[in-house]
């Protein structure tokens, strides 16, 4: 479903701030894979998602989604295949527009936009139904401006928008990191429900090792722009946080995991 073939990305090439963030990254995902991604700061986790999303083009290597080479495809065109939820709850929605308007924008992802109505009465009914899966009561607030919602509500809405039009790949970039623990748990539950329902191929970055173990069928650990640990199936289920910490120390040559990872 997703193939990253030896991709490279260097920022600020040729300057003192030069930083090679992706160093020959390889990743192959099967249809229906739910992979969790962990790694220290600057390991290249978000950069990998941005590479898949096409925020910029990679320097070397190729990206293939469901058999289609998208390496040189612009971000807004690639969006047809992708659902994205960002870390910052403010980034995934249009604050000055209503809940239903945001959903209607997402429902048209990957389609040409013309002079047809931006939202129809039939859609409103559908959205009322689909919002129920979030269990936040948003189905009764269709015309509320998104800017009036809490961070957790916005993040849950972004999640629904990302999956309203079934994406080939769902990209979650620490989408619960900015939320309080209780809200984060709720959004994560909603994520699990939606991914299960549609059997979505999913890449979820998290800094919470327990979440990384508890969710998905596969776990990868990144370090210096490469995958250094890749585990799936039964082996993954049997993992403990201390195993991951040990792995991390081993990989980073004794350098200890960062504070944020320790806290969880």
């Amino acid at each position: 479903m997703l193939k990253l073939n030896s991709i490279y990305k260097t920022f600020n090439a040729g300057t003192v701030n030069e930083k090679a963030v992706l160093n020959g990254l390889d990743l192959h995902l099967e249809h229906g894979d739910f992979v969790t991604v962990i790694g220290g700061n600057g390991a290249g986790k978000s950069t990998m998602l941005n590479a898949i999303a096409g925020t910029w083009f990679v320097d070397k290597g190729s990206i293939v989604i469901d058999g289609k080479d998208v390496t040189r495809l612009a971000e807004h065109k690639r969006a047809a295949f992708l659902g994205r939820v960002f870390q910052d709850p403010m980034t995934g929605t249009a604050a000055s527009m209503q809940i239903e308007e945001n959903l209607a924008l997402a429902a048209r992802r990957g389609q040409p936009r013309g002079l047809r109505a931006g939202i129809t009465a039939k859609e409103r009914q559908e959205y009322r139904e689909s919002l129920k899966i979030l269990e936040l009561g948003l189905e009764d607030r269709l015309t509320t401006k998104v800017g009036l919602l809490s961070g957790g509500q916005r993040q849950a809405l972004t999640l629904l928008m990302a999956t309203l039009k079934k994406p080939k790949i769902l990209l979650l970039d620490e989408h619960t990191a900015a939320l309080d623990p209780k809200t984060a748990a709720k959004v994560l539950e909603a994520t699990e429900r939606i991914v299960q329902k549609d059997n979505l191929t999913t890449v979820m970055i998290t800094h919470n090792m327990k979440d990384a173990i508890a969710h998905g069928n596969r776990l990868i650990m990144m370090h210096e722009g490469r995958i250094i640990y890749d585990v799936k199936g039964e082996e993954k289920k049997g993992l403990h946080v201390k195993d991951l910490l040990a792995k991390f120390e081993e990989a980073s040559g004794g350098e200890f995991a960062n504070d944020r990872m320790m806290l969880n």
Partner: protein
Amino acid sequence: MNIMNLLTALPGAVAQGLIWGIMAIGVYITYRLLDLADLTVDGTMCTGGAVCIMLMLKGYPVWMALTVAFLVGMLAGFVTGFLHTFMGIPAILAGILSQLGLYSINLRIMDNKANQAINVDKYHLLVSLRYIKNVPVYQNTILIVAVIIVVLIAVLYWFFGTEIGSAIRATGSNPNMSRAQGINTDVTKILGLMISNGIVAFASGLYAQYQGFADINAGRGAIVIGLAAVIISQVLFGKIQSNFAFKLAFVSFGGVIYYLVLQVVLWLGLNANDLKLVSAAIVAVFLAIPHLNAKRKGGAGNA
């Protein structure tokens, strides 16, 4: 300071205010919906009138002259949009470049003259300062401009509710999210700029007819008047819960109020040459208020 002088001047101020209200609706589209300050309008506010008057002098009917003015305005908006998106030039600078270029183009359109007059008695004008009083109701400029505004708002209300219109609004609200939802934000920005400048040029065509001439300086400071109208509408009507159509109507009222206030301060004895300074100062104050309020409340001060 004869109060009658003021009263007789008021209908004219309302008519001018309404025409500038149309222009302000154009500014609202870029400034509020797209979150871009587009300075192209200082050029297009002259271009539209130049195109309109020259075509009419050549014998074309008024509706055709206004349509062409609208299209030429859209072309100017396209140039700014192209410079901004595909050439990566900051929006303000792209607008200034278009505006400067338009100065020469405007002179060319006007046969290299700074001013081109049109005689209201010889040509069939849609609006004129002569059509304010002592004309049949259906010829009254205030009524005609008001009807045009109603039609314009109806069309814009429909358009910004369509898929492409929603995409333009989303672009102004959150460009990153828009791209993630598959919207080509370069295209939506260009479209918004084109529509905005088309409307401004159309208003310019009306304004030139109203005054009876096209003038090379007609657009100087137009952006400030447009912004003033937008800001006045926000300050006076911002608290009213209103849909998009009413918001646009309030913007055009903003233009009327601006001209009424102007008329009063002129009547009170302000030197007409000082007008632009006063306008700039007032707009600067109102633009600064949100920032100062945020600072006072201890916020980041970047509102």
